[in-house]
């Protein structure tokens, strides 16, 4: 990874080889030698079988005074190969273990006060709760299970899962009704309906995920395993038949050297690191405070073609700010500012407050002294707010709503008014009209401020082949202006949840993969439909259930990082596969001349590394093959360097580093090992 881009609240990442991880990992590496477990990994399973076979030959050599020194060393290094592979997986798992353990402790002693019909209350262990049970939680208690608040408002400390210590508000109804088991109620009292079965809760999923214990292979991992198994079979055929082909010329190949040849040829490097790469990818997500419910989603994130991004909070700062007052002829700016200020007093929305701030700040309108007779607060239905001060009926709000209030036909509005509205809308701003009675006073310019740096981010996305689509409730003109300012490829204006769903379906129909994030219950269908759906931790239970990832920081910008993590995971897997296969060329040049130089001395010419002796050549190839796994564990866990750019550039770079590098490196490595083997007289 280019930098340690961890989330501010993420638990500190333990070092790659911190002692706290290494110790248990070594133990776990041995435990994973159990063939029943290793079956899941065909390449390493074959390696283990071969190691066992060579061990038997070693015992036979000891008994029959054969070359036990050689077969013993080969057997030892074959076992090391297997151990290094299981160790890689253990280290990857170990990194998430500590976090999982603390989560487990928090969960283990939970009790719940179950509310039976007729308001009888019973204390039960949290693990016995069923979906639909209703529980009561008081201040200071831990919430026993994931669920939905059906009664009450309370502040909750969710730091156990988010790492964020500031409490959050949870309340019945609306978008903040979901609570998570294991989090602590700080105040008040909540009545909660349990939404998940025991063991299926958010924390349980998180633990399983971090531990990697119940990890399912992802689709691409399965496909790659099939290819690796196929290669293993092909090399098995090549090596076994070599015995017969060599027999033609009277060469009797020992099973030990054939075993050595087989293990060096089958893709042990990627076979040994494959699951570590997958676990590390998930771990990286967790470190970004994103919980994926399946590895499949992480892979899909790498494949995403289109990002649906909410305008607010992702592309622009959350709030639109008033920046200008544009009066109609005959009205002064100050008068308009005063009217807008009065009309906004009852408007508690950020927009309303920004009008007050602008009027009292830049325009120096004094705060009104008179008490209004009636206050009309802002409402989504009316889309306007205002006050009645004696005879003055001041209103401020959406242009069409205010026009209706004033009883003015849109076409009959003053020329300057219409021009201002038009200009503001075209520039991506939001015009708010201000009226007094049936008289239009002017327009307030609300501006959406695009986040700095977001345009460059989208340009990167475009270079990576990802389309960005801005989703907004704004009208098409406003949306187009912001879209062009932010540099997105497309936008969805006046978007309803149904529009989002339809857009996703349409894109998927064309073969594209879509990612989106959302938090409301009405986002749930679209989240479920999207290939990568990221729900905010602050969102509703429905949204969290429908999504395949949950962002604990509730930051809509995360989507971009998630895509990058997915891509990095896939690239690491591909690069190490290429590296592993390219390695084989050098191993042939080490082993083939060693096998046949006695029969055909001319084949010594293929020993281009000038390895000391046939035995040292074979042993060196086996040692190199084992050590390369250890050497690549850090790369597998960290992931390969990733810079956002187009596929062609990425391919060129990675092919050069891991393809060509994979061809060349083992020549150097095997030669170096051979020098040591010869110097120590190991054979």
């Amino acid at each position, binding site marked *: 990874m280019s930098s340690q881009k961890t989330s501010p609240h993420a638990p500190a990442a333990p070092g790659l080889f911190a002692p706290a991880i290494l110790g248990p990992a070594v133990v776990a590496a041995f435990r994973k030698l159990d063939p029943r477990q290793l079956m899941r990994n065909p390449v390493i399973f074959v390696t283990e079988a071969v190691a066992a076979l060579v061990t038997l030959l070693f015992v036979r050599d000891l008994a029959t005074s054969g070359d036990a020194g050689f077969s013993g060393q080969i057997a030892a290094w074959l076992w090391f190969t297997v151990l290094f592979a299981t160790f890689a997986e253990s280290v990857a798992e170990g990194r998430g273990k500590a976090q999982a353990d603390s989560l487990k402790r928090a969960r283990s002693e939970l009790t719940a006060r179950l509310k039976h019909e007729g308001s009888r209350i019973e204390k039960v262990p949290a693990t016995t709760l069923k979906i639909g049970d209703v529980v009561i939680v008081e201040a200071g208690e831990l919430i026993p299970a994931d669920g939905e608040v059906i009664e009450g408002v309370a502040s909750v400390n969710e730091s156990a899962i988010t790492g964020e210590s500031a409490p959050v508000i949870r309340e019945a109804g609306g978008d903040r009704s979901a609570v998570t088991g294991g989090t602590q109620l700080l105040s008040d009292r909540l009545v909660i309906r349990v939404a998940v079965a025991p063991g299926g809760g958010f924390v349980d999923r998180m633990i399983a995920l971090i531990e990697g214990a119940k990890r399912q292979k992802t689709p691409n991992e399965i*496909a790659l395993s099939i290819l690796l198994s*196929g290669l293993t*079979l092909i090399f098995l055929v*090549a090596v076994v038949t070599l015995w017969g082909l060599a027999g*033609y010329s009277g060469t009797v190949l020992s099973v030990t050297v054939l075993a050595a040849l087989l293990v060096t040829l089958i893709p042990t490097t990627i076979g040994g690191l494959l699951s570590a790469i997958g676990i590390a990818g998930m771990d990286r997500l967790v470190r970004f405070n994103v919980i994926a419910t399946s590895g499949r989603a992480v892979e899909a994130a790498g494949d995403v073609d289109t990002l649906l991004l909410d305008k607010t909070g992702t592309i622009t700062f959350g709030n639109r700010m008033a920046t200008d007052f544009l009066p109609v002829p005959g009205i002064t700016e100050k008068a308009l500012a005063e009217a807008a200020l009065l009309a906004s007093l009852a408007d508690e929305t950020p927009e309303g407050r920004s009008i007050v701030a602008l009027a009292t700040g830049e325009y120096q309108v004094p705060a009104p002294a008179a008490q209004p007779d009636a206050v009309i607060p802002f409402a989504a239905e009316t889309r306007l707010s205002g006050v009645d001060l004696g005879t003055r009926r001041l209103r401020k709000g959406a242009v069409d709503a205010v026009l209706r209030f004033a009883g003015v036909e849109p076409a009959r509005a003053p020329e300057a008014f219409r021009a201002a509205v038009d200009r503001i809308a075209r520039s991506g701003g939001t015009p708010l009209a201000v009226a007094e009675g049936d008289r239009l006073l002017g327009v307030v310019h609300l501006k959406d401020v695009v986040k700095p740096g977001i345009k460059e981010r989208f340009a990167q996305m*475009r270079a990576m082949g990802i389309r960005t689509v801005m989703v907004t409730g704004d009208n098409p003109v406003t949306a187009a202006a912001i879209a062009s300012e932010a540099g997105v490829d497309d936008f969805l204006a006046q978007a309803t949840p149904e529009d989002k769903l339809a857009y996703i379906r349409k894109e998927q129909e064309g073969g594209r993969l879509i990612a989106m994030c959302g938090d409301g219950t009405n986002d749930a269908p679209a989240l479920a439909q999207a290939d990568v759906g990221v729900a905010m931790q602050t969102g509703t239970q429905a949204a969290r259930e429908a999504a395949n990832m949950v962002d604990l920081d509730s930051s809509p910008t995360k989507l971009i990082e998630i895509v990058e993590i997915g891509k990095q995971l896939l690239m690491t897997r591909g690069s190490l596969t290429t590296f592993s296969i390219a390695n084989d060329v050098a191993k042939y040049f080490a082993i*083939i001349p060693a096998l046949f130089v006695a029969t055909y001395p001319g084949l010594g010419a293929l020993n281009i590394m000038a390895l000391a002796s046939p035995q040292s050549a074979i042993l060196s190839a086996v040692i190199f093959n084992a050590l390369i796994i250890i050497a690549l564990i850090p790369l597998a866990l960290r992931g390969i360097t990733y810079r956002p750019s187009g596929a062609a550039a990425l*391919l060129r770079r990675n092919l050069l580093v891991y393809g060509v590098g994979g061809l060349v490196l083992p020549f150097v490595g095997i030669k170096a090992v051979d020098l040591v083997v010869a110097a120590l007289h190991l054979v």
Partner: protein
Amino acid sequence: MTLVGWAQIAALFLAVLLTVKPLGLYMARVFSGERTFITPVLAPVEKGFYRLAGIDETREQGWLAYTLAMLAFSVAGFVSLYAIMRFQDVLPLNPQGFPAVPPDLAFNTAVSFLTNTNWQNYAGEATMSHLTQMAGLTVHNFTSAATGIALAMAVTRAFARSKVATLGNFWVDLVRANLYVLLPFAVVTALAFVAMGLPQTLDASVTATTLEGAQQTLALGPVASQEAIKQIGTNGGGFFNVNAAHPFENPTALSNLLNIYVMLAVSAALAYTFGQMVGDRRQGWAFLATIAVLLVAGVGLAYWAETSGNPILTSLGLDPAMGNMEGKEVRFGQSASALYAAVTTGLSDGGVNAMHGSFTALGGLVPMFLIQLGEVLPGGTGSGLYGLIVFALLSVFVAGLMVGRTPEFLGKKIEGREMKYAVLAILILPVAILGFAAVSAMLPVAVASIGTPGPHGLSEILYAFTSAAGNNGSAFGGLSGNTPWYNTTLGIAMLLGRFAYVVPVMALAGSIAAKVKAPASAGTFPTHTPLFVGLLIGIILILGGLQFFPALALGPIAEHFAMLAGQTF
């Protein structure tokens, strides 16, 4: 190596390059059911066939139905060909009065022509009646090639279409491949061959008086027509035992170039057809570039090895400037022989104009290795294309992840199921080649057939199974293959190489066809760039090399170093 030698090689590749586009476009139209200039003439005939056979040409088949139709057709073809050979003594058109073909040889030959291999464990002019040659072998020269083209078109449609269950109609593709592609091309080529002096007659032989006054019987027959389809269909089974080295099959340097051209033309053009049908011609060119690079490298290596000659012969007093002329026709020389050898093995043609076993060790390694690379350069008519597609899928799968997306080829995601079928397919070649070769190398009855001791003997065995499993059909020479052991095992290797390969490939196609075709973006793995061509070449070489390098080290490579050291066996 000489300038004239390279000029011949260049002329051939230029000629192929020039016709790739028109021929490729023509085939794309034919297999898309569009009108061509020849449609007015052939459409009534085509319709007649369908009416006769009761085929609804508009009804398409899924991969399974398509494959089953192909298998049924193949079984019927095998039975009829086997029967003709077993009963040729009592059937008409047998002027030489040849006896029935023995069962093991008939099995081997029937499989051989059925699978487009045309391995010949017999001398055609001294074993097969005219009826067997024309109604048996020549018919299969057409149908086996047409079957290959049909299968390739089915696989092509899988990539061209989005979310469909059907791949076309086998019977329609079969008829069109024969009627619109092979037949017209064969007629024109046969006439050109007649003009170049190839015999075309039903007479059995002509008796000539030699300069010494002796009487010599020269075998004749319908040579030109068989030669034409032998090459166009990448069959390679010659009318005469020595194949295209025979002056009646291949009298001049010009007929030699025409021979090589017509065997390359259709297979190369099919790569273009693929690009055209999947809507990305650049993909076709990328495939052609891959083929060209490897084929030219093969020709160059063989040409260089043959002109470098043999130091052992030099030490015996031969002029090293002559290079190695053993087993070659003087009228072709090293250049045209190396060119023929590389093309006939890069394709699965298998005809020869020189004896590959008489090449130097490295010169002989080239044709053997070209077959072991999977017969995709450009391979047999059709079979080469779908073989190359499998390699492309493997390349995309191994390296495609490196761009940070799960692998896809032409907008189709390559997932576990596709990998399973691709792996099943690529397993066939090493199992059939190395498995049988290893057993034969240890089996006294099989070793007894070897013509030369030492590593060359192993090369003979290895080449025979390589040629059979690769459905190539060229012989290394030296090995006496007409024994029950080789007739049977080579026959099985041929069957595996064709059917055990194509069934998983068709299942793969069925799975691909059902997938949605995603549009390309800047983030998509590009599969038409020089970089991809390099990658595809690398994967083909590394996969082929890794599988067969140990075996080759014991055969031609050991022989090469022994030759340099002056060692004989």
